């Protein structure tokens, strides 16, 4: 019986946990609940993935109102892949969080931190499973509002301003999205994505539809931080609490990528998007700009966390580049990089959280020689950095391989060279960290530091291990991505 309710349980379990945490008013109890719901989300998303991995989809009608009148949750392999990713990251971050929360959040607010975390999780999973355009907006706002709060909980006062800026830009993005949905609704008279796709075929006035496409693209691009709409991201990631940075970096932008793909392929159909409008070319230009400009900016950052935040903007460029190439291989590359980059960046930000806990500061100037005193943390960062560069036997390599292959298949070797050349920029900023961490003599303050606690190291290293494991055995990641890409390419059924 329970297996038929999986799509809704995925959303409702964390949603119910949130008010319970408020009622309990205890940080420790809230943490236990947070772990429970995160692992439950992982289990549910895993079960869903198994259900739909072979193809087909699972539909769930809220309130038993059939689609297109009621809200439908529609899970195919694309959604399940994303939900699984969110589940994995949530499970790891929930285990990791207590030390970070203990150090960074004042006692009276800890249960609220976990409440917001549960709401954010619920929102992200909701985006991943819903098949209704407006419901998607609501979940988008649930996850966004809770993430603004989570970011504002950072210790630095700049976190407040970062959260405010994210709030302004995030709301503009969500509003653009909802304008686009409004236009689609006017054109088709439905909000159910599958139904919308079917009705769009018969729409005689394409201008409104194209305008909707433009609005949705801009709105979602703001949320996924596509260059040059990334301005909110670096500060938000740099000043948020460590666990929050890792969680958001690994999930929030990735889920937005999913939204974009869902609209491009399942709603509009790849032909409209890539033939009626030059979306592929536009995305291509912005992706390449992200890869080069954001990586270059990353090289000149003084704050390690900010450096990796800019690196995220660049890596998002790889993902959208895969989308822009608009082929089976390109889409697979983009989707597999969604997963791979989430693992890599999640691990990196978790490890940086260890440095933030021990050293307090994240500036290059104040962590010189930290590799000697925090060997495990720093070696983990090195391995994660190698994955960013795309060294073989890491997940980053798998993504890069497929991206290059997609570029070559498209007959554009220059894109292939752009992809690999931009990874040299990653080499530069990763090596900057290595030289600071290992070649500088630790000063008295750094020498006094200890290695990060095991409760932080174990989850972070679990992700690092995953980075390497999934670089060698790609059945799950690449298999899932390829199945999802196929599901998207073949378009609305």
């Amino acid at each position, binding site marked *: 019986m329970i297996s038929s309710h999986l799509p809704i349980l995925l959303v409702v379990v964390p949603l119910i946990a949130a008010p319970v945490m408020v009622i309990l008013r205890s940080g420790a109890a809230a943490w236990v609940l947070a772990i429970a719901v995160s692992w439950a989300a992982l289990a549910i998303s895993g079960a869903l993935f198994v259900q739909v991995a072979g193809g087909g989809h699972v539909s769930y009608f809220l309130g038993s109102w059939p689609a297109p009148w009621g809200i439908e949750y529609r899970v195919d392999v694309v959604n399940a892949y994303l939900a699984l990713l969110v589940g994995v990251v949530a499970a790891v971050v929930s285990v990791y969080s207590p030390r970070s929360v203990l150090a960074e959040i004042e006692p009276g607010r800890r249960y609220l931190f976990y409440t917001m975390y549960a709401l954010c999780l619920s929102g992200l999973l909701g985006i991943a499973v819903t098949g209704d355009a407006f419901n998607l907006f609501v979940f988008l706002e649930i996850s966004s509002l809770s993430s603004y709060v989570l970011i504002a909980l950072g210790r630095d006062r700049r976190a407040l301003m970062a959260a405010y800026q994210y709030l302004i830009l995030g709301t503009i993005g969500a509003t653009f999205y909802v304008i686009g949905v409004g236009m689609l609704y006017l054109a088709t008279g439905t909000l159910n994505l599958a139904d919308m796709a079917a009705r769009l075929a018969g729409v005689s006035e394409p201008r409104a539809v194209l305008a909707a496409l433009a609005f949705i693209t801009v709105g979602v691009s703001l949320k996924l931080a596509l260059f040059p709409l990334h301005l909110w991201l670096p500060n938000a990631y740099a000043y948020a609490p460590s666990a929050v940075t890792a969680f958001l970096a690994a999930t929030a932008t990735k889920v937005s990528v999913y939204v974009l793909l869902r609209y491009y392929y399942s709603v509009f159909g790849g032909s409209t998007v890539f033939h009626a409008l030059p979306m592929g070319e536009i995305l291509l230009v912005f992706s390449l700009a992200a890869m080069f400009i954001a990586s270059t900016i990353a090289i000149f950052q003084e704050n390690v966390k900010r450096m990796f935040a800019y690196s995220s903007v660049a890596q998002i460029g790889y993902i959208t580049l895969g989308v822009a190439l608009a082929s089976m291989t390109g889409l697979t590359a983009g989707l597999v990089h969604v997963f791979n980059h989430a693992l890599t960046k999640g691990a990196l930000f978790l490890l940086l959280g260890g440095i933030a806990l021990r050293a307090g500061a994240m500036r290059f100037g104040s962590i010189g020689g930290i590799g000697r005193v925090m060997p495990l943390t720093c070696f983990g960062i090195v391995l994660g950095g190698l994955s960013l560069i795309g060294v073989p036997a890491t997940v980053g390599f798998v993504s890069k391989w497929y991206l290059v292959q997609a570029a070559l298949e498209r007959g554009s*070797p220059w894109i292939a060279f752009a992809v690999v050349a931009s990874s*040299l920029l990653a080499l530069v900023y990763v090596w900057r960290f290595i030289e600071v961490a290992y070649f500088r003599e630790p000063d008295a303050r750094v020498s006094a530091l200890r290695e990060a606690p095991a409760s932080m190291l174990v989850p972070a290293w679990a992700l690092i291990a995953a980075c390497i494991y999934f670089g060698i055995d790609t059945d799950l990641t690449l298999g899932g991505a*390829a199945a999802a890409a196929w599901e998207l390419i073949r378009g609305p059924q």
Partner: protein
Amino acid sequence: MTPETAILGAIAVPLLGAALIGAAHRVPDLREAVTLVTAVALFLLVATLAPGVLAGARPAAHVAEVMPGIDLAFRVEPLGMLFALVSSGLWIVNSLYSIGYMRGNREAHQTRYYVCFAAALASTMGIAFAGNLFTLFLFYEALTLVTYPLVTHHGTDEARRAGRLYIGVLVGTSIVFLLVAIIWTWAITGTIEFEPGGILAGSASNATVGLLLALYVFGIGKAAVMPVHRWLPAAMVAPTPVSALLHAVAVVKAGAFAVVKVVVYVFGVEAISGLASVDWLPFIAGFTVIAASIVALRSDDLKRRLAYSTVSQLSYVVLAAALLTPLSVIGAALHIATHALGKITLFFCAGAIYTAAHKSRVSELDGIGRHMPWTMAAFTVGALSLIGVPPAAGFVSKWFIISGALQAGHYPAVAVFIASTLLNAAYFLPIVHAAFFRRGPEDAHAAHGEAPWPMVAATTATAAATIALFFVADLPLALARQLSFGPAG
């Protein structure tokens, strides 16, 4: 033991050794004993594979399918067998030498040094036995990364700068050119397996083949074809045994090996011989041979002179492979082995001189041969081998290479070989002359004698091997011949 176990063991044993070395970091004697035992075990393991390969077998091992159609897989063929034998054999002497050098110079972080060294050997075995381009690339990158801590061993600003150049050039070229070349090959042919006769034959246009060859040659930065050679002299800041590792045991040999392997098994010697789009390569390689020799001639720093000599000698291999005749390919394979023996001898000598006399300039070596006779005798043998004078091993490989050039009728290449031989003589023989026949300043060498005994023993052993290989070149020759003529040849 099945060949499959031996292949996987050749990778696992040094890794296991690295772990044990790390575990024994508090007991230096035990740590170094583990290093030696691991080295010997590895050599024996590799040696068990040799008879089978000589008999025409091609043992293989499959580890995992990384991406659909792209495997982590190994396959031993003659060239890899030869390379693995040379590397694992030289690791034994190099370990012995390292013990003397690291103790004699009281280097810091010795555990890290031995761990990285063992890991580098594991990567080298992976390169030698790689069954496809992906596996080759994986271990190629791994070798770069694990040797980085060795190159920057001293942790000084100079070491850091050298490390930047090292990692920047090697990772940069490999990612930008080599990786694209590999994926391009995959996109064109749908396979990245090494096949006798090549896999590109017939499926790519001539222009594409030429472009791919350029991507491969410059992507394999470890082969140090100009202009991607700068990392090699810069890496001289490392301790001398590391230089020996770079120049003889693993790194540059992996580069030359990879070039020959790609030419033979990806392009196919017959498939591309006579192709107009690939005939630029002998000239690039020939230019490197001459230019690097001239730079070596002008260097007063002994290690720098040896480094540029290596750049020059590596391009011998590339040039020989690029001539695309059966004899020259044999010569290329042999030269990987003979140059390794000669060059490791020379570096051992340079390190011994530095350890015993703290001298690193050519101009300071007047009369040193009287105080360090064993070392300088070995130096003479190594120099003769590189010049190509019998009875040193270098003669054999040079013979094949020049025969190949004549067979191909490629007279510019012949001219390059003659000129470079003269240049080799010009930059090595004065050192020998100065060491033995010139009188040094008074009491310049009075304070020291020979280097510590492990260093002298290692140096003498490699020098002896250089001579011995001239007389018993059967094994390497047999392996190399299979490269051109197949198991039956």
